[in-house]
């Protein structure tokens, strides 16, 4: 739902891993799931450090 976040004016938006498990994925092993979570959280931290002037979506490559 990133378009909604952009619309309401959230400035730093990180795309997560799905509605029912934004910071996880039950198809993965617990270790892999935690690694995915860590990657997303680190990306969030990176976004916090990044100067933005308008709603910006940070996507994972």
């Amino acid at each position: 739902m990133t378009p909604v976040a952009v619309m309401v004016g959230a400035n730093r938006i990180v795309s997560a891993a799905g509605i029912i498990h934004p910071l996880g994925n039950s198809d993965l092993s617990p270790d892999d799931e935690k690694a995915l979570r860590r990657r997303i959280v680190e990306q969030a931290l990176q976004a916090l450090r990044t100067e933005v002037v308008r709603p910006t979506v940070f996507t994972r490559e």
Partner: protein
Amino acid sequence: MMATETLRVVCYLNQFFGQLGGEEKAGVGPQVVAGAVGAGRAVQQVLGDAGTVVATVICGDNYAAEQAERAVAEMVALVAPARPDLMVAGPAFLAGRYGVVCGALCAAVQTELKIPAVTGMQAENPGVELYRRRVYIVQTGAEAARMLDEVKRLVALGLKLARREAIGTPAAEGYFARGVTHNVVANASAADRAVAMLLDKLAGRAFASEVPRPAFPPVPAPRLIKTLEGATIALVTDGGLVPRGNPDGIEALNATRYGAYSIEGKTSLDAAQYDNPHRGYDTTWVKQDPHRLVPVDVARELEQSGAIGKLHETVYSTVGVATTLAQSARMGREIAEKLRAAGVDAVILTST
């Protein structure tokens, strides 16, 4: 297009209104069935002899929301062979994922297939603000209780669009203002209207401003002044994490309350101690493992490794489904004030 010809209509419904199932079916991909099913039968009933629902496209809300562009493309490909004169999506009422995909699909069908489309949803549905400029969205109530009534205006506007008849004002036809302006000649001079409007405002009477205020004023983006290594980070969510028993009574829908939950000393969240009343998505997976919503485990590790200065000891949580703008803004403000008072520098907010 003669008014007497029977129009071919395609409906779009989500998994629930298309009678495939509830949240557990929210991940199903796009499919098409012949004729009208589920809520589409109301559309057929209102159409009467004016039109026939020749096909219904159904898709799970999560599939559509998560795949977005791909899902819409797949659905457009299902609509095209039915050669409809009109597409009717929803109504989506207050269901946010459903409303957003209704808007997206209508927009795509109009642009790519040049077929008129119409949908309906309640005012607070995020689909309204996202798509009202491109798509005619009829205003509906919050729930399906008055399905036949809600569908009447939807179909009436759809028929006008399909027949290329002149569309009246938003108030007359019941659709959300599309945000397009057009010069007309008013019944009084601007000066006379201004004096009348001021007198109404002074008397406390309702007045209709002739220019809409911006719906979402821009929010200045704060800068993180400290380094991450020196910063205190808080975790917040609108995904509905609550302690077992929901002690603060956070509502499952239209929430007006939020909770403050301590994670002091915790390196992880024990699933047995938490619950989730959120009705906007299937909470099975986040109940199984709350870290899939609030990443306390990873955040604590980052704190311990020094990547962040401190993990704030309180998690703030509410249920973000059908929350009104006013309540969302109020809760956000209050949480922000508390965080600021506690010396928090930045927030990671997980939203579903």
